[in-house]
């Protein structure tokens, strides 16, 4: 066990984490030089977006300079703030972290956030400056930033070019020397953390585990601490990155367990596996299970697909346990689910993955944060769906979630960023300068403003130079109202939204105006209204359709005309009925894009 090193690489997006992982795999002989780069990013979506979503691990043999044999286990981590949850559980399986900084970019917002997480997890941090081959590499500035913003020994930072391999052998030596070996005894009862899992059609749920004490082998009985369910192990092994069976997984090792767990809901990431003979073995503590912060409803386009959606979500959660969902039904959209996400990117990626991996066509409603509603009778309710807000007369006051937002941006964009943030009700709490040319702005920021397109705007006003990261801060009171949307006197629950009172009217006007363009004209007039309680704050009317008639059926070509009518009827089947009004599916996506 003294020769095992479990480590991860943490970095801001695009700072070269996956490329470095490839070089390490090549150098240890696990991977032969390949044209299809970035082995750990196996999901298509990850490669397309250039970000790593799912944590995975790879075991590598390594012979150090002093001739000793080591086992290195690299645990991959996602880089974006939304995936902190996955980062934190991956960190839990390691003893050390390589903190990677792009020499041409310097310390960015996610560098800071990830470094804090690693410090909190008690990991040994090895600072590394990457991309030193670039002509605009600023090695000295990076060293200084590591010292100033993170308190790390910047002077000792290793210099690497993951692209051409420079410095990577030295990095492997440093991992062996600096990262402590895992602790924990093989002769103690089993204690094992599930830090990830996936579903195999033939073998059921396959948990990814880190053994903290004891050992696991074929034929062992294991118990899930939280549920006391017992299974028999039919295979143990590790990742190379393919699944490679082995005799035993002992304390300190990372690998997988096959135990024919067919029920997708039986295993949760973060659970502890113990031996049924020693049910008193404690859980592995300190595993941070963060709460989802953004919610939206998803509905199958075709109501008959509800069963398929249910099955897809069950499997999906196994792969991404940070997703929470529960049944929801909407008068406008039928039966669906309300999903909770770590953030907007998480939501977007989840929707994409659901569509791709499970072939589901979905309608998503506008995202909402979780409001804390205090009622006049003294309840405090967490409400993640505007349509479930209590009647205004029952509400004493409302609080909204706040985040601590860190933005790093070149000095020349500080003005526009401040202006943008002010318009989003942000409160600047600190402004620092990690180096001469950049500022680090720290804000108290309403999460609700974040989910309505702040990130995209941040990128555009800073011409792509700004980086940001955030963590949850707490709740703060404010003057909020629920705005309902009425289509011909019928309330459309899926379009209700919560707003600060002052901006309710302008938002409602934009929404109503767009809705008017989306809903086709009908034979009758359709008033579109936005209302707070019974008070209408915006209204537009869709004038009745006066002409919808087939002109001449010339020369007796009846078939073509009949087909035209049939095609129209087909199109109408895709509409959702709100009272007597046919509303196209796109209308429900409207608020998502509203602030753009």
């Amino acid at each position, binding site marked *: 066990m003294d020769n095992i090193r479990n480590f991860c690489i943490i970095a801001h997006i695009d700072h070269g984490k996956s490329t470095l992982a490839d070089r390490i795999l090549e150098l240890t002989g696990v991977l032969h030089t390949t044209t299809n780069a970035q082995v750990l990013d196996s999901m298509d979506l990850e490669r397309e977006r250039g970000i790593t979503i799912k944590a995975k691990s790879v075991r590598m043999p390594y012979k150090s300079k002093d001739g000793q044999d080591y086992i290195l286990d690299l645990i991959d981590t996602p880089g974006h703030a939304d995936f902190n949850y996955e980062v934190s559980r991956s960190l839990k399986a390691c003893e050390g972290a390589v903190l990677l900084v792009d020499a041409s970019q310097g310390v960015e917002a996610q560098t800071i956030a990830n470094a804090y997480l690693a410090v909190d997890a008690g990991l040994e941090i090895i600072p590394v400056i990457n991309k030193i081959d670039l002509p605009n590499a600023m090695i000295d500035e990076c060293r200084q930033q590591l010292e100033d913003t993170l308190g790390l020994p910047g002077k000792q930072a290793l210099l690497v070019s993951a692209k051409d391999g420079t410095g990577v052998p030295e990095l492997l030596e440093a991992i062996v020397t600096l990262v402590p070996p895992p602790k924990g005894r093989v002769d103690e009862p089993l204690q094992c953390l599930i830090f990830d899992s996936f579903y195999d059609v033939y073998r059921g749920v396959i948990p990814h585990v880190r053994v903290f004490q004891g050992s696991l082998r074929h034929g062992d009985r294991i118990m899930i601490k939280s549920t006391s369910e017992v299974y028999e192990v039919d295979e143990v092994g590790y990742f190379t990155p393919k699944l490679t069976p082995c005799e035993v997984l002992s304390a300190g090792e990372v690998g997988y367990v096959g135990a024919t767990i067919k029920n997708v809901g039986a295993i949760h990431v973060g659970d502890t596996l113990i031996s049924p003979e020693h049910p008193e073995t404690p859980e592995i503590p300190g595993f941070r299970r963060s709460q989802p912060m953004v919610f939206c409803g998803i509905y199958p386009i075709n*109501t008959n697909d509800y069963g398929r959606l249910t099955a897809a979500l069950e499997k999906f959660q196994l792969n991404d346990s940070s997703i929470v969902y529960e049944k929801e039904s909407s*008068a*406008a*959209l*039928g039966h669906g689910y309300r999903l909770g996400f770590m953030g907007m990117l998480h939501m977007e990626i989840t929707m994409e993955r659901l569509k791709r991996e499970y072939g589901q066509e979905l309608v998503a409603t506008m995202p909402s944060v979780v409001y804390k509603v205090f009622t006049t009778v003294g309840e405090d309710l967490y409400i993640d769906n505007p349509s479930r807000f209590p009647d205004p007369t029952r509400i004493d006051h409302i609080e909204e979630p706040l985040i601590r937002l860190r933005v790093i941006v070149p000095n020349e964009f500080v003005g526009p960023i401040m202006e943008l943030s002010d318009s989003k009700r942000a409160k600047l709490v600190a402004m620092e300068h990690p180096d001469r040319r950049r500022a680090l702005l720290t804000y108290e920021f309403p999460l609700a403003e974040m989910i309505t397109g702040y990130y995209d705007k941040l990128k555009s006003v800073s011409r792509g130079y700004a980086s940001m990261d955030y963590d949850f801060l707490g709740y703060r009171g404010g003057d909020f109202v629920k705005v309902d949307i009425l289509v011909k006197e019928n309330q459309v629950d899926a379009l209700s939204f919560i707003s600060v009172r002052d901006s309710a009217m302008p938002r409602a006007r934009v929404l109503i105006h767009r809705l008017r363009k989306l809903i086709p004209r009908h*034979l009758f007039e359709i008033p579109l209204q936005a209302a707070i309680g019974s008070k209408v704050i915006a209204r537009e009317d869709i*004038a009745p*359709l*006066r*002409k*919808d*008639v*087939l*002109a*001449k*059926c*010339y*020369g*007796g*070509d*009846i*078939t073509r005309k*009949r087909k035209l*009518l*049939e095609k*129209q*009827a*087909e199109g*109408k*089947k895709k*509409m*959702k*009925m709100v009272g*007597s009004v*046919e509303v196209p599916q796109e209308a429900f996506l409207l608020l998502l894009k509203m602030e753009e």
Partner: protein
Amino acid sequence: MRGLYIHIPFCVRKCSYCDFYSLPGRQDRIKPYVSAVITEARAYAGLSFHTLYLGGGTPSLLGAEQLKNLIGGLRETFDLGGLVEATVEVNPESATPGFLDAAMDAGINRVSLGVQSLSDCELESVGRVHTAARAIDAMTLSRNLGFTSLSADLIIGLPGQTWNTLSAALETLVRLGINHLSVYCLALEEGTPLAQRPLGNLPSDDTQAELFELARAFLIGQGFIHYEISNFARKDHECLHNLNYWRGGEYLGLGPAAASHLQGRRSRNRPTLDAYVENPTGQVEYVETLGGEEKAAEEAMLRLRLLVEGIDPGVLSGRFSPATIETLVSRLDDMVMRGMLEFDNSRYVLPASRILTSNEIFREVLGTGTCGVPGGRHCEV
């Protein structure tokens, strides 16, 4: 009742809104084309017809001689002894005394003039070849030559059109003695030059609807009957050939792009002149034989276009078995309950208020209403 339609796919110039099959500048092919039509006709030799309709394109481009050859050939091939109506579409610029004389001699008894508008600006804006004055001359000439059944086409929604120009046209046409008028709303058909480059001063759909309502009121005031969605006629001057279409009757269409309905089977020829002249009998590109219920629904949809005649349940049950029309009739009854149809004088008819918004009603009659369920009720979620 059986109709014979001959498509004449030649034009001097293509109008910018037109998506019918017709070719400008191919008049050199008229002679072989007429022979080809006769050849196609021979495949149906011996059939009898009660109406004949020469449509286009521009049938008046045939000229006197080819018109004579065409109708002569048809008379040799078919039994036209019972012909009660024979229409030729005439464009003002080719309405020569020679052609109209020849038409009269050949037994044509109805002239349908492609007037479209009596404003030179409007005519020019969509690429019509003729002027308003030429159209008026053609009308006068036809009447003076002894044609007693005179029809004109008008388009609603031409660029720059207002009630001023439209009402002036209507008054002139009525004064000139027409007894039939087809009024079509301009539609931007996919692929036409007008749809690709719509003119800025095109009246909106709402304006079209307004103009149509005004025109309808004017014509009814003048004693015309609004007998079909797009057609007005003085009593006993309805177009029998077209009535036969709406009544689900049989017809044979000859020529490229022509459609036929014989023995319950609908078919259509390929729209290619050259291939047709080469092989006139091998051009069928589409055939459809609907099942009983669909067929009845289709006929009901067509008959509802006849605003006065509508659907007589007695006539329907004479043409289809009771089992075939059972769901259709209950659907129609249901639509009466919901105000989408009226039951008047023991006939189902389209309410006057729904003439211009009849597509929804037709969709339901076809049984392809919002949910595709018989009865076509909306699906509430």
